C-alpha cells in the first residue's frame, strides 16, 4: 500500500464521491423518458384505444357520390377507401376521394365564424361568435321575410342532392325567393337538355360500360372526371378483363388525348365541336347500309340526308373509311354503347351533339339494353325541383345584384369567382350585394369577398345523404355520417340553415333542431316505402342498418320500354360549331380540361393532389400548355418555353409542354390551378384557363361553350423548367432513369396509326 498523505486521501475521497454521484446521474439520464397514460373521464362507446373503427359515409369531393369507408382510430380519421357495399364505388375510390383527409386536416381551414371589417385594401376578417354571426344574418333574413321581400335573398350552392337539397329548397320557399341556384363549373347541362329532348326526361341514364363490347366516347373523359369516374373505371376494367371470352373495345373521339383516350383501343381526333356531326355521319352510314329497320326509317333517312360520309369527313377531318368502319362495327358488335360529353358538350352546338349521340344509340337498339344505355327510375330521394344554374343563370344573378335586387347572398360550397370567366363580372356583382354570407370551409376566392363567414364542417364531420345521379340502373342512397368529432368551431351546413330558419320564424314549418333530426325524419318516409320485412324491424333498426351498410338501394329498375317521339327525329342535326375570335387573329382553339387532380380547382388546396404527377404529362405543381410537336417545331418552341396565350378576353403566360396526342391547331390547358386565395398550397401556383374564356353560350341551356375560345400563341423568350417526374435532363441522354408518362407512351406506340399530322383545320 503506497503512502497516502492526508491531502491525497481527501482528494481521492472527494473525487470518489463526485464520481459515484455522476454514475448515479448517468443511470438516471439513461432511463426512458416518462410517459403518461391519460385515461378518458367517461369511456366513449364508439371506440376502443388501439382498435380501428370503420365508418361508412359518402364522399363529397366531387359530384359522383361514391360510398366511402373511413378508418378511424382513437377518434381520428386515418384513411379513406371505397365502401365495398356501395354500388357506385364498390370498394374503390379515386385519388381526390382518398385525399379527403387533407380537407379535414387542412391547416388553412376556417376555424371560427368571421366578419369583414374595413373597406377595400384595408379589409380584413375578425373572429366573431356563432351567436353574433347567426344573429346578424338571421335578423336581416327575418326583416326581409316580415316585409315580404324574401325574394331579395339569393342562395348559391354547389350541386347538392338528397335532404340537404330539400332543406335548401324549403328554406328558400319560406322566404318566397326563387333564387336558389345549384352551380358547378362542370355540371353537364347540355347532357341533361339532350336527354330531355330525346328521352323526355331530364335525367342521366346508366351507362353500362361493364357489359358493353364496343364503346364510342364522343369527348367524354369517363375514366377521369366525367359524371362518375370511379364507377366507369370499374366498368372499364370489367369490360376489358372481367369476361372470359370477350374483350371490350373502346374508341375515343376527342381533339386532345385524355386519360380515357390513352386507355382506349383507338383515339380519333375530330375537329373540336364536330363530334356530333361525326356521330350523325355514323348514323347516316348505318341507315344507308340498311342496318336500321324501324317504322320511322323514312324520317331518319330524311333527317340524316346531309350527313354523307364525304360531307362529314370534310367537316370533321376524320377520313371516310374510318367513319364507315366505325359505323359498321358499331352495328356488328352488340351490345355497343355511345356516350358523349365533356368538351364535346361544351360547344355552341353541345345539346345537338349529345342528341346525335343518343340517336346513334337509338339506331342500333342500345337503349334499355344490358351493355347499353339503361334508363334510370326516378331517384329515391326526396323530391326536389331542378335548380341547376348554367352560365347564363349566373350572369342573370350577377345582373340582378348590379341592379340592387339582391340584399343577401348565401354561398355554400361553390366558388364562382374562380370558376366563372371574368366576363361574367361576378366578383364585381358581389361587391354590390349588402350582405354576402359564405358557408365555406376554406377561404376561397369567393369567400374572400364575403361579409360574414359561417364556416361549415367538412363532409367527414357532418350529417347528410346522397342519392347518386345517375344511379346504377336502380336507385341508390347513402347517409353521410360524421366520422370524427368536429375539429374546430364550425357547424354543419344543414345545422346553420336550420338555425337561420328558426331565427326568421320558420320553426313551425322547419321544426328540426339539427340536420341529423331532419335526416331521420326524411329517411323515415323512405323506410315507410319498404317491404313488410323492413317495416317489421322498426325504424331505428332500419336507420342503424343504413348507417352501418353505408348504402341503401331500391331494386326497382327503370322502364326498359322506350318509344321515341317522332318530332325529335326531324329536329336532329348538328350545326358547325361557333368559335369566339377570328381564325386569322387567333389560330388556335383552346381546349381547357378538368385536371384529374384538382377537378374544377377544388382539389388544389390538397398537398397530395399538388404533388401527384399528372398522369398524361407527369408534371407536378403548376400549369402548362400542351402543344403538338409539329406546331411547336414550326414556332420554334420546346418544353418549358414561356408563351403568352391571348384570347379575345384575356391573356395568360404559361410554359409549353410538347404533347404528341393533340391536334396541331388545338392547345390544351388543365383547369384547377391559378388560385389567388384558397390556402397556402393552392395560392399562386400556375394559371387558371377559365380566366381567358370567352362568354360564348350554347343557346338552349345557356351553358358556357368553354371549349370554343380561340387563342393565339406568342413566344416570350422566357424559359422555365417544368417540374415533372420523368425525363431528367442531367442524365444527358443516357436514359439512366427509365421513365414514361401515359400520354407520350401511348402516342409513340401508335405513331403509325394515328394521323396526327394529316388532320388540318
Amino acid at each position, binding site marked *: 500500500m503506497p503512502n497516502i498523505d492526508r491531502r*491525497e486521501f481527501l482528494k481521492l475521497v472527494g473525487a470518489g464521491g463526485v464520481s459515484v454521484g455522476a454514475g448515479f446521474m448517468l*443511470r438516471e439520464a439513461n432511463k426512458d423518458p416518462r410517459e403518461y397514460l391519460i385515461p*378518458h373521464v367517461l369511456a366513449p362507446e364508439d371506440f*376502443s*384505444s388501439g382498435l380501428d373503427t370503420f365508418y361508412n359515409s359518402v364522399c363529397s369531393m366531387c359530384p359522383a357520390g361514391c360510398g366511402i369507408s373511413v378508418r378511424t382510430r382513437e377518434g381520428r380519421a386515418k384513411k379513406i377507401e371505397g365502401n365495398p357495399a356501395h354500388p357506385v364505388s364498390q370498394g374503390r375510390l379515386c385519388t381526390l376521394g382518398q385525399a379527403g383527409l387533407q380537407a379535414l386536416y387542412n391547416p388553412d381551414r376556417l376555424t371560427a365564424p368571421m366578419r369583414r371589417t374595413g373597406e377595400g385594401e384595408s379589409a380584413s376578417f375578425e373572429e366573431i361568435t356563432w351567436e353574433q354571426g347567426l344573429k346578424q344574418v338571421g335578423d336581416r333574413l327575418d326583416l326581409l321575410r316580415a316585409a315580404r321581400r324574401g325574394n331579395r335573398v339569393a342562395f348559391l350552392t354547389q350541386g347538392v342532392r338528397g335532404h340537404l337539397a330539400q332543406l335548401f329548397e324549403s328554406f328558400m320557399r319560406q322566404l318566397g325567393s326563387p333564387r336558389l341556384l345549384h352551380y358547378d363549373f362542370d355540371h353537364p347541362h347540355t347532357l341533361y337538355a339532350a336527354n330531355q329532348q330525346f328521352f323526355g326526361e331530364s335525367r342521366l341514364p346508366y351507362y353500362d360500360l361493364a357489359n358493353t363490347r364496343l364503346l364510342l366516347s364522343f369527348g367524354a373523359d369517363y375514366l377521369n372526371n366525367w359524371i362518375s369516374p370511379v364507377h366507369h373505371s370499374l366498368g372499364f376494367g370489367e369490360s376489358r378483363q372481367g369476361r372470359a371470352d370477350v374483350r371490350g373495345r373502346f374508341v375515343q373521339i376527342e381533339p386532345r388525348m385524355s386519360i380515357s383516350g390513352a386507355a382506349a383501343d383507338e383515339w380519333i381526333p375530330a375537329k373540336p365541336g364536330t363530334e356530333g356531326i361525326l356521330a350523325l355521319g355514323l348514323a347516316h352510314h348505318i341507315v344507308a347500309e340498311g342496318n336500321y329497320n324501324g317504322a320511322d326509317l323514312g324520317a331518319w333517312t330524311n333527317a340524316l340526308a346531309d350527313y354523307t360520309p364525304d360531307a362529314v369527313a370534310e367537316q370533321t377531318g376524320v377520313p371516310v373509311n374510318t367513319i364507315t368502319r366505325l359505323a359498321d362495327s358499331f352495328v356488328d358488335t352488340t351490345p355497343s354503347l355511345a356516350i358523349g360529353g365533356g368538351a364535346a358538350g361544351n360547344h355552341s352546338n353541345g345539346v345537338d351533339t349529345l342528341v346525335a349521340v343518343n340517336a346513334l344509340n337509338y339506331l342500333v337498339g342500345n337503349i334499355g339494353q344490358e351493355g347499353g344505355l339503361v334508363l334510370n327510375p326516378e331517384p329515391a330521394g326526396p323530391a326536389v325541383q331542378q335548380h341547376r344554374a348554367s352560365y347564363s343563370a349566373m350572369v342573370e344573378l350577377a345582373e340582378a345584384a348590379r341592379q340592387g335586387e339582391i340584399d343577401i347572398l348565401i354561398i355554400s360550397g361553390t366558388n364562382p369567382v374562380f370558376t366563372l370567366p371574368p366576363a361574367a363580372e361576378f366578383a364585381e356583382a358581389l361587391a354590390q350585394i349588402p350582405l354576402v354570407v359564405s358557408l365555406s370551409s376554406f377561404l376561397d376566392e369567393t369567400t374572400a369577398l364575403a361579409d360574414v363567414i359561417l364556416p361549415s364542417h367538412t363532409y367527414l364531420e357532418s350529417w347528410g345523404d346522397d342519392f347518386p345521379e345517375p344511379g346504377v340502373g336502380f336507385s341508390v342512397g347513402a347517409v353521410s355520417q360524421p366520422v370524427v368529432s368536429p375539429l374546430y368551431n364550425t357547424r354543419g351546413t344543414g345545422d346553420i340553415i336550420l338555425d337561420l330558419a328558426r331565427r326568421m320564424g320558420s320553426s313551425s314549418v322547419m321544426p328540426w333542431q339539427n340536420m341529423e333530426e331532419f335526416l331521420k325524419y326524411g329517411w323515415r318516409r323512405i323506410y315507410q316505402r319498404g317491404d313488410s320485412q323492413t317495416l317489421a324491424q322498426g325504424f331505428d333498426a332500419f336507420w342503424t342498418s343504413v348507417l352501418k351498410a353505408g348504402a341503401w338501394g331500391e331494386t326497382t329498375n327503370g322502364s326498359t320500354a322506350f318509344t321515341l317521339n317522332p318530332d325529335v327525329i326531324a329536329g336532329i342535326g348538328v350545326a358547325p360549331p361557333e368559335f369566339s375570335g377570328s381564325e386569322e387573329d387567333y389560330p388556335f382553339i383552346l381546349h381547357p380540361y378538368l385536371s384529374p387532380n384538382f377537378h374544377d380547382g377544388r382539389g388544389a388546396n390538397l398537398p397530395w393532389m399538388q404533388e401527384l404527377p399528372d398522369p398524361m404529362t407527369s408534371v407536378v405543381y403548376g400549369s402548362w400548355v400542351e402543344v403538338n410537336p409539329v406546331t411547336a417545331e414550326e414556332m420554334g418552341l420546346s418544353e418549358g418555353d414561356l408563351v403568352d396565350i391571348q384570347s379575345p378576353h384575356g391573356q395568360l403566360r404559361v410554359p409549353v409542354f410538347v404533347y404528341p396526342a393533340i391536334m396541331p391547331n388545338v392547345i390544351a390547358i388543365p383547369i384547377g390551378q391559378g388560385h389567388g386565395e384558397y390556402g397556402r398550397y393552392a395560392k399562386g401556383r400556375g394559371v387558371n384557363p377559365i380566366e381567358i374564356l370567352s362568354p360564348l353560350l350554347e343557346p338552349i341551356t345557356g351553358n358556357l361553350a368553354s371549349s370554343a375560345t380561340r387563342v393565339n400563341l406568342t413566344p416570350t423568350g422566357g424559359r422555365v423548367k417544368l417540374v415533372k417526374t420523368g425525363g431528367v435532363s442531367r442524365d444527358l441522354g443516357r436514359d439512366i432513369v427509365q421513365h414514361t408518362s401515359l400520354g407520350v407512351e401511348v402516342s409513340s406506340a401508335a405513331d403509325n396509326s394515328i394521323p396526327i399530322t394529316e388532320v388540318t383545320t
Partner: protein
Amino acid sequence: MNISIVPALKVLRPAAMLVIVILVGLVLGYWANATFVPGNSPEQPIAFSHKIHAGDNEVPCLYCHTQARRSPSAGVPAVSKCVGCHLEVATEKPQIRLLMSYWENREPIPWIKVHDLPDFVHFTHKRHVLANIECQTCHGPVETMDRITVSSRAVNGSAQVGHPWKMGLCLSCHRENEVVNGIDCLTCHK
C-alpha cells in the same frame, strides 16, 4: 542508456489512483441507482394499489383492463370505471377522496406509464390474452404490488427485477411454447 519507467510511474501514481477511484465510483453510482432506485416504479398521482384490488379482493385483471382481450393495447380504465365502485366503496379514504376530486372536475388522472415497449416492437395483448397467457407472465406478481413495478415471472419461474423486458423474454417463451412463426423477426418487428 538505461531507461526506466519507474520514475514516470512515481509521478503518475496519484493520477492513476484518481482515475481508478473515479471509474470505480462511476460504476458504483450507476449500480446503486439501478438496484436501489427502481425508476420503473414511479410514484403515481393516486396511490392505487393493485394488491388491494387484484390481490385481496380478487378483482379480475380484465374487469378494468377490458380491452386486453380485443385490442393491441390493454387500455387504462376511464375515471368513470373507478367511480362506478367508489361511489359506494371506501369513500372516506383520502386517496378515494383524491379520486373523486378528479371525477368532480371531469379531469383524467395522469397515470405514469410503467410498462413500455419500444415503438419498433409490435406487441398485441389480444393474442396473448386469447392464448391464455397469464398477465403475470410478463407483468410480474401485480396482485402483490402496492405500487406497480416492472418485473416479470420469467419462464424459468424466478422473479426478475430491474428491466426484464428484453427480447430474450419474448423469444424464450415463444420457443418453449412452440409458437408458430414465434421466432420470426417479422412477427414482432414489422
